[in-house]
């Protein structure tokens, strides 16, 4: 998220306010939470299950579970971290149900986000980014998630620990091991 996006968000209701409104039956508040967090949930899901269709099912189940349990959400962590934790659990459940077989159909796993740049530069960046994504897929699960949650979603190591079910320290170690391994793979 850019600084400009942060500033714009300052004028919008916070997640906490939306959760409160959602609990009181405000469906539009739930809709805003979905719009705000579905992309991150999708990335976590597809990173774990490796398949677009299944990832979409996982995201849908995660939101439904989160909204049903909204009354019990105590706010110990942010709504975003809580949702991503539910998403990761749902993804692991989906993998268990299909016998732990993770698909790696990378071309089906959503397009790369476009950036504002010239066509030649964009093509070069897209190529390199595609390669990085392929290499990312080769990392062990917790390293992969730690790297993508830290860089793509901007979560702190404490929040990453909550999502992957480990301590803050273990999340940090997983991230730095993942980055080091990625650099080796990219060279």
């Amino acid at each position, binding site marked *: 998220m850019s600084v400009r996006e942060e500033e714009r968000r300052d004028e919008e209701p916070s997640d906490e306010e939306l959760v409160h409104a959602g609990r009181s039956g405000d469906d539009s508040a739930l809709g805003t939470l979905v719009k705000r967090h579905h992309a991150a949930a999708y*990335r976590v899901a597809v990173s774990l299950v490796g398949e677009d269709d299944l990832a979409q099912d996982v995201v849908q189940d995660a939101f439904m579970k989160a909204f049903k349990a909204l009354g019990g959400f105590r706010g110990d962590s942010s709504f975003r971290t809580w949702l991503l934790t539910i998403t990761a659990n749902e993804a692991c459940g989906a993998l268990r149900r299909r016998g732990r077989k993770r698909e790696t159909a990378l071309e089906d796993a*959503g397009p790369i986000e476009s*950036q504002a740049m010239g066509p030649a530069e964009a093509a070069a960046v897209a190529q390199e980014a595609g390669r990085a994504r392929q290499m990312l897929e080769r990392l062990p699960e917790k390293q992969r998630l730690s790297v993508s949650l830290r860089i793509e979603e901007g979560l702190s190591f404490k929040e990453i620990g909550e999502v992957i079910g480990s301590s803050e320290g273990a999340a940090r170690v997983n991230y730095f091991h993942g980055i080091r391994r990625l650099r080796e793979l990219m060279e």
Partner: protein
Amino acid sequence: MNDELCGTVRELIPDFVCSRLPATDLEVVERHVIDCGECHAELQLAQVILAGRRSPPPELLERLARTIDASRPQPVRTWWAVSAAAVAALALGIGISSDPSAGALISVPGYASEVEEGAIWLSDDGLLAGAPHFDGLSDDALLQLLDELSVGSTGGAA
């Protein structure tokens, strides 16, 4: 290369690439990566990872909206309709107790067709008897019922 500073900068790199760093930390990273090849390479890797971030398929948002919509509990009758039902029940009682001339009204009211068979029945004087199920009536039917009861009450008072 300063190991301690490298450690600090590498902790900051993810927030740097997402433009989440305060100005002071931003400057620390920018200055450091000019001279430190290792941290510069790590910064470039983080930028490439961010550039390769997946977008969710556009249909996902629509699908989620549909699912949430479908899971929403059926809307309960609005407060005014409940109030209208209560007024209607009261008016019904007044009509029955004070309007003997209403015995001439034998026709089945229109709203009665919307009520399940057996849920209401006609009394001898042609008005509804028993306990009508107002929950089963549409808003239009409730308004019609109020109109008819209002006419009945006026007639009874005259």
